[in-house]
């Protein structure tokens, strides 16, 4: 799936991994999250090689991370409040009063303090994503992973999420990795970009660098051209032959 990936994500930066669907970027995110282990090579995350960790060490590492899933992955049998409080109750001995204050603080940061008693089924897509973001930062993680955070959002919700990603990262001093294929929303808010195609990194640099990189794939991707290195047509025999024209000619 991935070949010869050599990725360096500096502490405190917001880094995007971009590419078309199926290029391997979610696999890369899973490797960073230690949900998958590389079959060759190694991944060093927050100073630890993920392949060397036992279950307890892996869980200790994950307590230093937060992850925002594509569709939120909120616990549907819990209220918004309980979703955000989940990790605090599981991993800390904080009294319920302190947990309440912290949860309201996180929800205030994403503008949804008033939605605390609602169930996930009562939220819009954008609101669910914001709650999931509040849950991801519940324990002030050092590394925040975003899996397609902008997919399926209306323009207002999309703008809100994009702004929150940057603001929360700056406020927490965390490192962020955003896996996405949304160019317009992502390039203005990230510090560095990796472009992937067919399981390889084909271009990298600051947003300004990649815009003028001259790499045909990147140009097609950024401009949204329908044909180019990524062809419009799926490989097939000649159209005439398919229609039986070649045989009659």
């Amino acid at each position: 799936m991935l070949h010869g990936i050599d990725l360096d994500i500096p502490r405190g930066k917001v880094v995007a991994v971009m590419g078309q669907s199926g290029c391997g970027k979610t696999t890369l995110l899973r490797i960073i999250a230690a949900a998958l282990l590389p079959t060759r090579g190694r991944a060093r995350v927050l100073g630890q090689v993920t392949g060397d960790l036992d279950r307890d060490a892996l869980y200790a590492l994950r307590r230093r991370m937060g992850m925002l899933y594509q569709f939120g992955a909120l616990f549907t049998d819990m209220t918004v409040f309980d979703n955000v409080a989940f990790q605090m109750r599981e991993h800390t001995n904080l009294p319920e009063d302190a947990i309440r204050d912290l949860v309201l603080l996180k929800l205030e940061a994403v503008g949804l303090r008033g939605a605390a008693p609602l169930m996930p089924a009562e939220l819009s897509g954008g609101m669910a994503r914001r709650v999931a973001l509040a849950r991801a930062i519940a324990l002030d993680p050092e590394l925040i992973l975003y899996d397609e955070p902008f997919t399926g959002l209306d323009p207002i919700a999309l703008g809100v999420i994009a702004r929150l990603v940057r603001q929360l990262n700056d406020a927490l001093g965390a490192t962020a990795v955003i896996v996405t294929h949304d160019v317009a929303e992502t390039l203005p808010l990230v510090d560095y970009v990796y472009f992937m195609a067919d399981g390889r990194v084909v271009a990298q640099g600051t947003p300004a660098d990649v815009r003028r990189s001259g790499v045909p794939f990147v140009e097609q991707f950024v401009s949204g051209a329908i044909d180019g290195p990524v062809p419009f047509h799926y490989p097939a025999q000649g159209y005439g032959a398919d229609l039986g024209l070649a045989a009659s000619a």
Partner: protein
Amino acid sequence: MRAALTHLGAAVTAGIWRLGYGARFFAYLLVHSGTAFRRFRLTLREIYFAGVLSLIIILVSGLFVGMVLGLQGYDTLQRYGSSEALGVLVALSLVRELGPVVAGLLFASRAGSAITAEIGLMKATEQLSAMEMMAVDPIARVVAPRFWGGVLSMPLLAALFSAMGIFGGYLVGVVLIGVDEGAFWSQMQAAVDVRNDILNGVIKSVVFGVAVTLIAVFEGYDAVPTAEGVSGATTRTVVTSSLAILALDFVLTALMFTGGN
């Protein structure tokens, strides 16, 4: 011919592999069941969903099964002039067999399918992955409380099914047909043995509870994370659980009630 053999071999290998995976899952579940008991409110919640919410179907079914037993039993017994033994027939049929088996089958279709669907949907919507990413083991936090909730609920439901069935037999035999009430209860009291009948029935219901709930949580956890996958897993839970109950019932009956009991 060769293709058919290859297909058969692959199916057998896949079945053995899945059985081994299921056994490992069960062992892991038992080892990580501490949370289910340390934070017993998690298990209590599952007892409510698996047990309390199954009460209506269990009680109504028990009543009707007992009433049918009363009618059928009286029809047969009165031919031999033994209609006073109706209470014994109803009680032994329920306590030894029908209570655990029918309650188990109803539990599999009502609670087992719900457990599978819930865990499968949690997997399909990445809730289990999210939990794992939060350094919380989903087997300890989600699966174990549901497993123990089901295991604890099943004997109670079987006991209630039997009690309701005996009441149904009483309604039909004594109130409706007119069998002597004293004979109905006293013969039942004399013939039903606590160890040989009631305890063995309880053991059966515990075994069925373990089998049904294990199958339900395993199918949910192992479901393909799509709508079709969850649907298939739910169906497999009901079918496999029902067959497991009937097969285990035969084995347990052979072990328990041979030798003149």
